[in-house]
């Protein structure tokens, strides 16, 4: 077990508070979406502040796991209507934010991005009071290459300590599944999907599931069976994976909120890998007007058609 150096987080917290104080008091923004301490020791929760005096409530810690970008589109629709909104984002969250800009859901000049240098956050399975170590760190952070968000309006000027080399859970699991026969792999996913209770928490938390009426809720015609039965469950998760292909930023919120512990981000990472290999595309800090699934080129790799 290796302890991960999170000493910069207090300096980051100070810097966020200072920037929030300044931007709110100067009227640059009308609200800031960030993290605040929650009741349990060490835990954190999302907060929306509209008052400069509330800036002191903002924190950044290894418990700040949420991807806050959903608060700009669907979770709290009234917030963006107030004016330009500030938002605290980690590298993974920023990719989602950038993706939403590419899909006409957000305009760059309507948001004020406060990027945080991040050494990793805790896995959802451990207590928030625990120390960030090679055992307690979230799986997504093990394979993260974006500790420092880019293209933000403000980023605290701190030096990120060198990250230790960590075991790559997703890559290992993808390799394990790829080594299986199609029948075994199908059995694995059928088993996973059979656990689904159709609570749709994965959909609600996903920044890219921004449809006002999900096609899975339609009944004329019914595209996806609504009851939690294996066939409908599988259909739902495949639709989700396909819709996220070339869009998913890897914040892994779906996997964190799943009450049945379905490895949803594993599916997303596999799709992301396919997109990278086939079309040399991956979610990044650059706004992309036309994702790989909205373009067609005769020279596109078609080897997957068998």
């Amino acid at each position, binding site marked *: 077990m290796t302890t991960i150096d999170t000493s910069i987080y207090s300096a980051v917290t100070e810097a966020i508070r200072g920037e929030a104080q300044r931007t709110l008091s100067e009227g640059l923004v009308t609200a800031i979406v960030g993290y605040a301490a929650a009741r349990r020791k060490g835990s954190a929760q999302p907060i929306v502040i509209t008052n400069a005096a509330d800036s002191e409530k903002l924190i950044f810690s290894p418990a700040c796991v949420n991807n806050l970008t959903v608060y700009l589109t669907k979770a709290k629709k009234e917030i963006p209507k107030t004016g330009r909104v500030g938002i605290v984002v980690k590298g993974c969250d920023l990719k989602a934010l950038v993706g939403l800009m590419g*899909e*006409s*859901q957000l305009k760059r000049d309507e948001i004020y991005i406060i990027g945080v240098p991040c050494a990793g956050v805790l896995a959802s399975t451990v207590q928030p009071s625990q120390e960030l170590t090679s055992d307690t760190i979230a799986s997504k952070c093990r394979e993260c290459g974006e500790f420092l968000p880019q293209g933000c309006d403000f980023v605290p000027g701190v030096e990120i300590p060198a990250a230790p080399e960590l075991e790559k859970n997703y890559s290992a699991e993808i390799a394990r599944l790829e080594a299986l026969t199609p029948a075994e792999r199908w059995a694995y996913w059928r088993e996973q999907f059979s656990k689904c209770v159709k609570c749709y928490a994965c959909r609600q938390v996903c920044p890219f599931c*921004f*449809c*006002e*009426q*999900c*096609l899975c809720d*339609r009944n*004329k*015609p*019914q*595209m996806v069976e609504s009851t939690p039965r294996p066939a409908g469950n599988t259909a739902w998760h495949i639709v989700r994976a396909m*819709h996220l292909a070339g869009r998913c930023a890897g914040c892994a919120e779906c996997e964190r909120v799943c009450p049945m512990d379905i490895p949803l981000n594993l599916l997303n990472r596999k799709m992301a890998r396919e997109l990278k290999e086939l079309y040399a595309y991956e979610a990044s800090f650059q706004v992309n*007007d*036309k994702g790989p*699934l*909205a*373009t*067609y080129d005769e020279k596109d790799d078609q080897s997957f058609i068998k």
Partner: protein
Amino acid sequence: MSRIGVFVCHCGENISRTVDVERVALQAGKLPGVAFATDYKYMCSDPGQNLLKRAIAEQRLSHVVVAACSPRMHERTFRKAVESAGLNPFLCEMANIREHCSWVHEDKEEATVKAIEIVGMMVERVKKNRVLPNITVPVTTRSLVIGGGIAGIQAALDIADAGHEVVLVEREPSIGGHMAQLSETFPTLDCSQCIMTPKMVDVANHPRITLHTYSEIEQMDGYIGNFQVTVRKKARSVDEAKCTGCGICMTKCPQKKIPNAFDCNLGMRPAIYVPFPQAVPNTPVIDRENCTRFKTGKCGVCQKVCGPGAVDYEQEDRLIVEPVGAIVVATGFKLYTIEEKPKGSPIKGYGEFGHGKIPDVIDGMTFERLASASGPTGGKILRPSDGREPKQIVFIQCIGSRAREKGISYCSKVCCMYTAKHTMLYHHKVHDGQAYVFFMDARTPGKGYDEFWRRSIEEEEAVYIRGMVSRLYQKGDKIVVMGSDIAVGVQVEIEADMVVLATAVQPQVGADTLAQKLGISYDKYHFYSEAHAKLRPVECATAGIYLAGACQGPKDIPDTVSQASAAAAKVMTLFARDKLEREPIVATVKEAGCVGCFYCKKVCPYGAVEEKEIRDRQGNLVKVVAYVNPGVCGGCGTCQATCPSKSVELDGYTDEQIVAMIEAL
């Protein structure tokens, strides 16, 4: 409740041979919602259509399913019939039990079961069909013709003579194309220039033809009736308005040693030039690649000698946007050059015939220039190597054509006839000479064609040897041609002074890029594809674009001219009314579900999707959604496939209809 009529067609025996059509009709009659079902030998025939119309009236049918061929074949036919019986034409659907069933299966029992299922699917689908009113769009009664060869010229003249404006775009500095290069034409041996140049002058003088030479198509937007075509007018370096065509610039140009492509590089031309004396327009162009002024900055003689001051070294490419309603593509052909395998060409090289290595091995077009009175030798047949008259000449046919192993399986169609013509021209000019022709078959269908070919043998003394040439090499100043005469079964060896190769006809360079700009399809050789090989031979699958001449496939002059006039007739049909009725198969957006991600806008190949603001009564912006312009929408359904929230649907192909079809199975 629906009262659906199902009409099962035998298609002669095309369907009934493998599908028990009576059983299909019987089973269809039992489907819920079906009020009437019958079968008939030829549904598309007049009695067949009358049967359908009568049934609609007598049985009070609400919807119609015709189980027959592909909708591409007869959907329009039956929708028209349904419309004349008083139903909305879009309440009629076709169940394809020919291409999708009888033609691809052998087992009658299985094919019959499948046909019943196909009909069942379409019955469920047609129940969800909506009444769709036709859409009318305005038509710009102006047309664009791409290519100024005989095809483009004929089409442009025909359309302009009918009273419509034409924009004719030609890549080269002059119109005329390949026909201007020919000496005499089969089967009458009239002079090509004599019949071509008056037409070229007609184009130049026509009040309704705008001519853009030395120009290329940059971009095309829009749709039938409403295209916006951007033409790049390349910098000619000579002001067309000022130039009088006196030609002094050409005589004074110090750089005179540039091979003239019009004469197949046999003659030379200056850097400022017109490709040939009869060029239209008679305005020179500066070949900037070879001009001393452009290469070194020194010279400028042409500018000094030009009286009207037309020479303009600073001229730049200009982009002109031409709004047109119809487009005729007539980009013609090129001859396969055989010295090596051209980059990207499907054909492998024919280096064994020495073209490019042995100077007196030439292609058919070069022979035309030698035989032409306006050619580099003034019409004398002389060897390019030493200028001597060849006394033994060998013509070899099918070079590249009909050689599957070399990459081209088609027949180039014109070579048999022009080779026969070449032997005659040769015999007329070199009385003591002897022409030999190596051929596989002589293909001479056409009015007066076979007689012409017979004449070359019987009266003009050409010796035809059935067989191919195996080897050809230079020996002294002779070319030894070794081949076989399979009619007699002996090897033949001829010491020739000149060899003429009838090389394959290929589409013009860049045919594929132009097709991509226009959104038309092409085959593996890059010949453009017609909408239907037999019934729509001059139309592209893309509405409003028509084909003329050898860009569609090898053609001789009579065929080219016929097709050009046919394409012109199609354009005139389109222009006969100022509004165009088009199918209402277009996409519509369900604004309630649309979240404005505009993926539809990104993927729409027609540029039909616009952004639309939804405001409340106070005028506050609620959201921005997609809007499909029905006049522009091509009905491809790409938006429907892309929309993540399923908020855009193609009328006639709604999710409800598709799911109903799946559930019927």
